[in-house]
């Protein structure tokens, strides 16, 4: 096999898996849907294995510079596979109870994943855009998959209209950058930007559009309006998907576009990121306090957390990027745990999506209350959970870049956030239960969710492996 095909082998695996699933699903009866499910899991496993085997520290640019195969890409792809696999494991019972346990769901999830992979490894504006659209279209469809329900349909419409607008922004910005630099390839653009002599206005204008589109995909203020509605309206299983793996893709999007292509203009985007970061951390945390729906609360918490990710990027050096990567990984791990527990509390005909449904969880099940406690303190950035080191890294990146005031805004906002995370703990531990139904779950879900929660603690005690991994990935990338 040629080197270029090896670089995209994980993409090929996922594409083949998705296509096979599409075919096989035609011949499955309703009672055999689990075959499709396991086929999807198998695809993820093979893809992860293949990525692991073909991993190298070299930066390879293949297919006429359309695709880049570097260590960051490999890590992000593996993280996405793990995240999607966990999403499937956690949401199986939930999907079964709501008629979502069908081939279409799995196929769409795999295509969304394929889009992420293409985006993660893009080395050209074209591939980048292609991946982004593939991911987004699959996600729009997934949000609306319960097509008879009103809330998901409304959420999907909002997501689609605003998402299409953002894609338009991105294309518009890309075309300006193309006009200013004469190339669509990220590394060539980077060189052209560094040696730029002409057209800075056009370049900066393009940059503004690109940053806006990024902010939209990330869900940063002031482009955050879709986040709460989509998180709230979509079935929890799909919310979990949107809240997890696509964040890795969004990270890659920023990395490739800002750190990569526009690396020479950080004077231009740094300021924009600072403004969005400050707005996101404060607005996200403040509005989250007023929520009574746990999915909406976590949506605003996402907005705030993405503000911290931007704080890492704003430093515009390898320390900052690896801080942002660590943050994203920690965040996705924590979010998986959060929605995992929320789905555990739901059952046939009952959605556990208000905060009151968590009341007295410690009396119903001390173990799951403990897992949720870890999740909440990790989101709040308290030691000894991984969330603390995520905050430490981005704050350090901000202070290193001489933005001490930004770090202070960051910690004050974290204080606001601590309030509503503490309220969740309060509901679980201090209040008496309302819902008395026993909590039942599949063995694999129990095991993985428990492991997920304990990993938050483990990485909180020994964060070095993950820190080292993120630093390694970025040191061996082209952004060093």
């Amino acid at each position, binding site marked *: 096999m040629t080197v270029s095909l090896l670089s995209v082998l994980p993409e090929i695996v996922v594409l083949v898996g998705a296509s096979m699933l599409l075919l096989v699903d035609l011949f499955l009866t309703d009672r055999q849907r689990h075959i499709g499910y396991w086929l999807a899991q198998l695809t993820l496993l093979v893809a992860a294995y293949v990525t692991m085997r073909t991993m190298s520290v070299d930066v390879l640019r293949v297919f006429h510079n359309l695709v880049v195969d570097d260590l960051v890409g490999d890590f992000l792809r593996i993280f996405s596979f793990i995240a999607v696999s966990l999403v499937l494991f956690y949401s199986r019972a939930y999907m079964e109870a709501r008629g979502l346990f069908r081939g279409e769901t799995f196929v769409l999830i795999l295509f969304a994943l394929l889009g992420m992979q293409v985006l993660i490894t893009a080395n050209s504006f074209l591939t980048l855009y292609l991946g982004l659209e593939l991911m987004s279209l699959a996600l729009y469809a997934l949000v609306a998959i319960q097509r008879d329900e009103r809330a998901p349909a409304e959420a999907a419409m909002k997501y689609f209209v605003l998402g299409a607008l953002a894609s338009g922004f991105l294309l518009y910005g890309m075309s300006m950058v193309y006009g200013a630099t004469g190339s669509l390839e990220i590394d060539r653009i980077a060189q052209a930007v560094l040696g730029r002599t002409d057209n800075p206005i056009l370049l900066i204008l393009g940059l503004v559009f690109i940053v806006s589109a990024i902010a939209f995909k990330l869900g940063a203020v002031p482009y955050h309006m879709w986040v709460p509605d989509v998180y709230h309206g979509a079935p929890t299983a799909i919310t979990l998907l949107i809240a997890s793996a696509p964040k890795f893709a969004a990270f890659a999007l920023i990395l490739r576009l800002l750190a990569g292509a526009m690396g020479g203009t950080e004077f231009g985007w740094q300021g924009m990121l600072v403004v969005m970061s400050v707005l996101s951390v404060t607005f996200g945390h403040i509005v989250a306090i007023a929520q009574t729906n746990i999915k909406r609360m976590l949506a605003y918490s996402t907005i705030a957390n993405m503000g911290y990710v931007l704080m890492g990027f704003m430093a515009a050096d390898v320390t900052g990027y690896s801080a942002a990567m660590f943050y994203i990984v920690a965040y996705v791990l924590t979010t998986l745990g959060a929605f995992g527990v929320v789905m555990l509390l739901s059952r046939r005909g009952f959605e556990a999506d208000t905060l009151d449904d968590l009341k007295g969880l410690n009396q119903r099940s001390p173990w799951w209350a403990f897992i949720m*406690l870890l999740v909440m303190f990790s989101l709040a950035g*308290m*030691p000894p959970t991984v969330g*603390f080191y995520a905050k430490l890294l981005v704050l350090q990146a901000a202070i290193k870049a001489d933005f*001490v005031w930004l770090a202070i805004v960051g*910690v004050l906002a974290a204080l606001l956030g601590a309030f509503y995370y503490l309220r969740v*703990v309060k509901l679980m*531990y*201090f209040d008496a239960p309302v819902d008395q139904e026993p909590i039942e779950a599949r063995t694999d879900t129990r095991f993985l969710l428990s492991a997920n929660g304990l990993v938050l603690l483990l990485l909180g005690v020994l964060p070095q492996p993950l820190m080292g991994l993120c*630093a390694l990935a970025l040191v061996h990338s082209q952004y060093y």
Partner: protein
Amino acid sequence: MTPYLSLAIWVPIVAAVAVLVLGRDRDAGRARWIALIGALAGFLVTIPLYTHFDKTTSAMQFVERASWIPYFDIYYHLGVDGISVLFVLLNSFTTVLVVWAGWEVIKTRVAQYMAAFLIMSGLINGAFAALDAILFYVYFEAMLIPMYLIIGVWGGERRVYAAIKFFLYTLLGSLLMLVAFIYLYQQSGGSFALADWYVLPLSLKTQVLLFVAFFAAFAVKVPMWPVHTWLPDAHTEAPTGGSVVLAAITLKIGAYGFVRFILPIVPDASHHLSGFVITLSLIAIVYIGFVALVQADMKKLIAYSSISHMGFVTLGFFLFNQLGVEGGLVQMISHGFVSAAMFLCVGVLYDRMHTRMIADYGGVVNTMPKFAAFMMLFAMANAGLPATSGFVGEFLVILAAVQVNFWLAFLAALSLILGAAYTLWMYKRVIFGAPGNAHVAGLTDLSRREFWLLATVAAAVLIMGIFPKPFIDVMHVSVTDLLAHVAKSKI
């Protein structure tokens, strides 16, 4: 060499895990016994820290150092000197007391209650022994989590309000301190070691800003006026054990932060702003003393008296002389015993009557003579009577203050009058007179467990009051060295 400090941290935490795994709510007895054994083991491993302690050096002893997070050059670096070693002992001792004090009193979720205290104990020992800033911060912050649960789950009526207020108040301060840590990390060229920060030159402006950040963390924890408002709520609503640990130990971490972080890292700013700190301390001593006088709730009264007594500690530290710093440290330990004892006494009454209001009592001596005798001793110690531990610290600080300024000492000494007034007046209203009501008339005296519990603390209070030398000897060299360091400018 045996890693005594690691044992002091991890033995209680491992015991806590054992309690959680083995203790069932149906079989609370097992959880209690495992917890007691864990707490005793945790105390026993700290005893060599005193017996093997070299009193002739100010260097860190029992040092353990291992690479922990190489990415940031963070070490698992532990060690104690004359300033911190006694607090590790005090904390492990207090843990035994609280486990014992909660024995029959706590009936719901016993395993979780005991485990929370054991985890707290390990984390607090970690905070006193950490020589790496991030390691300290992890212990310092993590201990909020068990305390939050202790207040919120087993606390009184307004427990939720008190728990959240406690958590957010302390978090605000420590987050600013985290920013200061990262800033110092940048300035020192990538080190979180306290020893490196001690010798790091800093401009006065930087020092003042760092002082503010550290002060935010530690002043809230001490607590100093005017950031003390979380404490009366937290102390009042917490279960007895929670109040004991809060008063006896966690307040000390705030004061410890002053001598471990603020004075040596930003000495010039400390001198520069000493007037500010002394003023706040005097306000705490005098004004909060008056506030304590008017309390109708016993626990609130003791809480305010804690703030007033901790004012002596910060006052002593910022006088920058040997007597003042040693007096402050002695006062910290003494207050650890006395406030613990006072809260235990209120706990004894509360368990029988389920009220903390002074007005609901009266004439307790008629039915509980043994209890009244113990409480007399502790009330006297709280008022600073000679021959009790409460006297030594206050006396040393007042002596130190006289060296600096007579009127300063005069104001500080007012506390002796105020302390006697609020403590003894409360004692009189609760204990003396004819039985106040039918409930008081039906009280039973101390059980054997309660008797020995209070007797243990009483012994500690008396020993420290009559013969404080072993305590002061341990800290003497370290304090001399600290003052020599602080006297040098870092600008």
